[in-house]
């Protein structure tokens, strides 16, 4: 599975840049720069699964992935309505 497919499976939003995620009110989290596509998928999966825990615990309202050519970054929208400081 590609990172986009993984994001779709776990209902995570996909952004193509960190700025886009910040503008949408997401807080950037863990980031990985894998060296090949298999590792990139694995990194995306690992990040999403950790974010899912945040979502189930109620800490995050929405989760997302910033997928860039050479990196994957997790992001989430905090449960409170306040937009976090960028």
């Amino acid at each position, binding site marked *: 599975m590609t990172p986009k497919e993984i994001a779709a499976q776990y209902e995570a939003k996909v952004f193509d840049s960190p700025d886009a995620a910040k503008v949408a009110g997401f807080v950037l989290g863990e980031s990985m720069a894998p060296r090949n596509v298999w590792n990139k998928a694995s*990194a995306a999966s690992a990040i999403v699964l950790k974010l*899912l825990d945040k979502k189930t615990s109620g800490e995050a309202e929405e989760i997302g992935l910033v997928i860039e050519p050479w990196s994957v970054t997790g992001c989430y929208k905090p449960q409170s309505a306040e937009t976090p400081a960028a």
Partner: protein
Amino acid sequence: MAEDTKQPGSETPTTPDASTSDSSGTPPPSSIPDAGQLAGADAEKKAMVDQAKSRVAAVKEGLTPPEGAPKPPVKKKEEGPKPTDASSHPLVKKLKTKFGQAIGDASEFIGQLSINVASEAIVAICDFLRTDKETQFDYLSDLTCVHYPTRKEAPFDVVYNLYSIPKNERVRLKVQATEEGVDSVTGVWPAANWLEREVFDLFGVHFKGHPDLRRLLLPPDWQGYPLRKDYPLEFVENAWTEEHLPQMTEVQMEQVQQRRAYGLEILSVPQERVMREIFRGGKEVMTKDK
């Protein structure tokens, strides 16, 4: 047929007769094929070409459907075998009569029998399968685990692959487990010792009653369980690597960053070189496993 097989240059060359050649040097008419001969050869060649073309056309006609005909349906890929219910399998019936509710669903896939088993009864079931004269599963072929991160109530399946040497039969037992784990089967098969340690090392599943449950492959102070789905494939710097592995120099870091920028991180040469130097030098990088 003999004429057909004759090589083009094999005819005896006709020597021009001096008496017949004129002073201008023009060859005598007998040495040049006359127009009739040429026309005959061309006609023969043309006939052969036409024949070949008609053969090709006939083949094409057979392959291509006539105009307006409906297209033939696209052949679907043949679906592979699927697991079937094996509740009527003699072994499953036998276990159900003996252990009742502890035996869950059973399925068979390409001749491989898998039985879901309650975690509380795993030791008793294993012991029974080993000692019963009809089954005699005396060899624990493998003990492994699967992580299902979305199955919150029991995210792990501990899998026991058993083999009966006297009966030449195999069976797979599956137990759903949490991190707290299941009872150890080292009392049934001593071979389970290292297999359970491996599962503990890579998945973090505990085995109650194990005589020596500690990491097997990774350093004892390693953090995390690499075969879980939430553990990335790629090497990640962590507390252990920071403590035990030498840090990269600034130049090396810059090289890595440049490689990343150009998408050449695949090679990761500096890191590998550092690792090789460590192991060539025989430097002790792991704490003693005590």
